[in-house]
């Protein structure tokens, strides 16, 4: 395993550890193909070269970068609202490209088939028209006006209704979901998924939630998140190719895939290769 030479991937920030689980001993993990060590004090160094990585701490996570990220980490306004419930979930390892995982998170059309009876149910399979765009001023991808018929939107919900969702991709390996909170319709629950790309087709993911909802227990929320992830794992580990193709025409999108199309175009514009089929060619 060697570190990728993809400069776009190298110059990003990546969540590599939770700060609430400080080990007395250094932890070893992998980032962009290279083994790294996280010291008890939060220092991160490459086990291949010994060099120290840039680090920063935010939202209870330790972030690291091999390169020089051109900008600071993005902002999550909801994380600064003190009356919210902060729910950090656990890390999940997936034998998949982190980019496929982001795309899966953006996708509503799979709810009735993969999260049957939880996030969707046949015959309510239609994905109503929504808007997706690359926001040039902030260099992010957004999908807005998303609606979907869900049978059970959150751990507390029973019955079913149309949910209103907004998706945001603030960095290539981070994806967020904002949803109208049923108990406080003027506010949005915020959920962020941070990916640590370990190898082209191996990643770790950690969801963080900033919720308005206070009725479900922490254990219920974690359980809910875990069920959803175990279901998505079957998909992202069995897509072919495992790496995300950025070339149009390699896969066939429809209108419901608007967010995926924008995300892929944005990644291609950036020239990102790690975790894409272009990364596979470069490695071959």
């Amino acid at each position, binding site marked *: 395993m060697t570190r990728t030479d993809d400069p776009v991937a190298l110059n990003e920030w990546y969540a590599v550890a939770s700060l609430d689980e400080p080990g007395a001993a250094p932890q070893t993990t992998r980032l962009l193909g290279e083994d790294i060590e996280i010291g008890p004090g939060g220092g991160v160094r490459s086990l291949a070269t010994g060099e120290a990585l840039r680090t920063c701490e935010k939202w209870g996570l330790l972030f690291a970068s091999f390169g020089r990220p051109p900008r600071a980490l993005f902002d999550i306004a909801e994380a600064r609202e003190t009356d919210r419930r902060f729910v950090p979930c656990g890390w999940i390892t997936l034998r998949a490209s982190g980019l496929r995982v982001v795309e899966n998170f953006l996708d509503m*059309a799979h709810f*009735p088939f993969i999260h049957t009876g939880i996030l969707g149910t046949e015959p309510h399979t239609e994905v109503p028209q929504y808007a997706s765009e690359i926001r040039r001023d902030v260099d992010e991808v957004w999908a807005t006006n998303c609606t979907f018929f869900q049978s059970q939107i959150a751990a507390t919900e029973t019955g079913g209704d149309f949910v209103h969702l907004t998706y945001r991709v603030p960095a290539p390996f981070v994806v967020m979901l904002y949803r109208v909170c049923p108990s406080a319709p003027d506010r949005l629950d915020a959920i962020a998924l941070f990916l640590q790309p370990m190898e082209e087709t191996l990643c770790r993911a950690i969801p963080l939630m900033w919720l308005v909802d206070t009725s479900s227990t922490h254990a219920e929320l974690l359980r809910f998140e875990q069920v959803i992830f175990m279901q998505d794992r079957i*998909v992202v580990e*069995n897509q072919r*190719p495992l790496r995300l193709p950025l070339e149009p025409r390699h*896969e*066939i999108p*429809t209108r*419901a895939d608007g967010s995926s199309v924008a995300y892929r175009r944005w990644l291609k514009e950036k020239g990102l290769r790690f975790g894409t089929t272009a990364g596979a060619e470069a490695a071959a």
Partner: protein
Amino acid sequence: MPPPPVAWTPVALAADLQPGAAAGVVVDGAEVAIWRDTAGTPHAWEDRCPHRGMKLSFGFVRGERLACLYHGWEYDGGGQCRYIPAHPDLDVPASICVNRYSAADAAGLLWVASGTGSGDLPDPGDPLSPLRSLFIDAPLGEVLNRLAADGLPGLGPVVESAEDGPLLNFDQAGHRFVVGRHPTGPSGTALHILLKGEVSAEARAAMIPATAELRRLAEAGR
């Protein structure tokens, strides 16, 4: 992904793929989805949904169609996409179709080939009783040499063995074995083993330990 060979390759015991079922097989490095519609007709397709690449072998059969697990796109027996659940009213463009291979039932085996398949499918005449499919981490050539010389370990001497195209036939312990040879890759082999005639379930069950022993010896290279 590479397609499977143009020569017919046995990929499963026909009885192991029930009507309404789908499964994934690897043929010489090519991932192939095999499935039977509810009428029992076999199909073999590239194991990749054209939408987002989900393996179609994870899909489910709905009558005459295979539905992809991920978003439920439904493909008819001709590989043509007929229904996209995210857009129930959409007239699906004809350009959305899967890559199809040939599939056929013959000699108690399910066969797959690229294109229309080259060569004839075997016709054993007599009925055959399925024994089992055996997956071995060793190259096909090595496994076949061992099998032709010694048959199944512990069942006594092999009286006669002969290759019949993609089949290997041999007599051992009073039975006529018919083995479909299936390379999964350069160092992987699947054998689909049948017995000529009606062989009782007890007699077949008694041979299972010998097949496991064959795999053990072949993988140990001894």
